[in-house]
């Protein structure tokens, strides 16, 4: 009888866990220095763990988790700089200025000099984006929400023109 109970718990428990991960979100460890100083601020101080909330709508400035376009098994964490229709001045990309095509976005790490981002890949399909990083959950000394903002010098060109009027 107990064996049957155990089997039933596992049989339904695993799908419930997977569904929560797929629909609500999950906690993940941040590797690398590309999002310094917001995530993993100091070398040798260990890793930050962030809560990634599943979403399908993204705003400029959000810190997002996405599949690398070069490798489907690698996930990246970057900041959305521009959405479709925006014009961005690139940093190290092959064109100095890019207008983002329909259904794409431009993502960059905050630590631009040490980041694998749109300056390497080009505009990224929004379908590659899976989740938004909402807060740092571990270690306790780092408990905080992740703020959504676009660095002043990275605001897309079309917004600069509009704000000057």
């Amino acid at each position: 009888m107990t064996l049957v109970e155990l089997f039933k718990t596992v049989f339904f428990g695993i799908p419930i866990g997977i569904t929560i991960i797929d629909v609500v979100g999950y906690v993940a460890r941040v590797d690398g220095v590309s999002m310094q100083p917001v995530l993993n601020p100091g070398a040798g101080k260990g890793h930050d763990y962030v809560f990634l909330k599943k979403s399908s709508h993204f705003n400029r400035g959000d810190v997002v988790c996405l599949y690398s376009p070069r490798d489907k098994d690698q996930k990246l964490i970057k900041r959305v700089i521009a959405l479709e229709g925006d014009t961005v001045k690139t940093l190290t990309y092959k064109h100095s200025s890019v207008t983002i095509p329909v259904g794409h976005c431009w993502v960059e790490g905050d630590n631009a000099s040490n980041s694998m981002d749109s300056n390497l890949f080009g505009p990224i399909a929004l379908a590659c984006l899976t989740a938004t990083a909402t807060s740092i959950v571990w270690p306790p000394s780092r408990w905080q929400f992740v703020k959504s903002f676009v660095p002043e010098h990275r605001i897309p060109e079309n917004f600069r023109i509009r704000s000057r009027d």
Partner: protein
Amino acid sequence: MVWNTVKTTVKVGCLFHVIFEHVTDVVWCRGPSMEPTIWSDNVVLCDHITPRYRGIRTGDIVISKSVTKPDVNVCKRVKGVPGDYIVTGYSFLRVPTGHVWLEGDNKQNSTDSRTYGPVPQALLRGRVVCRIWPLTEFRVFSNVD
């Protein structure tokens, strides 16, 4: 009594979510882009396991998220995997690492990689195995036709 009903609904709902998301899925195909292999309003069975463990091969029919519309799925055939050369007009293009080249079988009426370029493999959702509706036209798709 109510509590038990809620519990059962959640359990069964989650079980179906996992099956449809990670094991196998039924997809209603609309649009002419895969004619004459798949007609509009055909229902096909999509397999989420082989792309993950065996990988995608040239000739497979796949369901992929659209590059231009993130909420829309498209059904196309894989024409090239990383390293393959694709003829586009008068020039050659190499499929980059981590991407695939997708084309519809109905070349005159398909929006595919010829329009939007190579597609990241992360967007592929599954491989189309067979047509299950209409029942009289049941057919297993191979990757050579």
